[in-house]
């Protein structure tokens, strides 16, 4: 099971703050995104250029490997401070 989280604008567009996706074996963030896009048009924002990815709360690239139990978050560029 992969725990997926969305924040800020992405959370609103997805219509959910988090969801779980069944996953057996190792995969990458990029293929997880493909799966999400196939599932639901609401995730279209994931194909935009300005998507930040965190795997287990560390900023990562789309080729990052993920396994069962991992937490993957998608969010827009940050604007704190």
């Amino acid at each position, binding site marked *: 099971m992969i725990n997926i*989280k969305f*924040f*800020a*604008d992405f*959370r609103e567009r997805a219509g959910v703050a988090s969801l779980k996706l069944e996953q057996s074996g190792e995969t990458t963030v990029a293929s997880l995104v493909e799966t999400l896009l196939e599932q639901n048009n609401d995730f279209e924002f994931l194909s935009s250029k*300005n998507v*930040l990815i*965190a795997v287990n*709360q*560390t*900023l990562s690239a789309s080729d990052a490997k993920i396994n069962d139990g991992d937490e993957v*978050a998608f*969010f*827009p*560029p*940050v*604007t*704190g*401070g």
Partner: protein
Amino acid sequence: MMIKVQSADFCVGEEYSRLRQNADSDGAIVTFTGLVRDFNQDGSVSSMFIEHYPGMTEKSLMKICSEARMRWELGQISVIHRIGHLTASEQIVFVGVTAKHRKEAFEGAQFIMDYLKNSAPLWKKEGTLSGMKWVDSKTSDEQALTRWYEDKQVS
């Protein structure tokens, strides 16, 4: 190192005193406080909501402070970032750094703010006359990082 992500306001005087009490043989304290502006990209701002990624925000701020310590000899470091609802002119962020000399303290504090703005998972939503709107990230904030690029980067 003290990292706090909280909805409550903070008192700069108290934070300064805490830094000073623990500054040991340091000769410099630099503090920075960020406030909610009443004017942004699309006009006047009456209120603001700050969302964050619980857990990762703290982790990311710790990482930024550790990176600052690798570059400069710093004493105490305090970072406070507020979340939730804020109104114009309220305090949002505090960074305080102590060091032996002013150069390290100034640069350390500036480095922490520059990286916080670009990598800590926090998002502002502003309340304007036309409703609530997520704030766009600024390229000027990204450019501010390039001055630190000669060495290692925080990812």
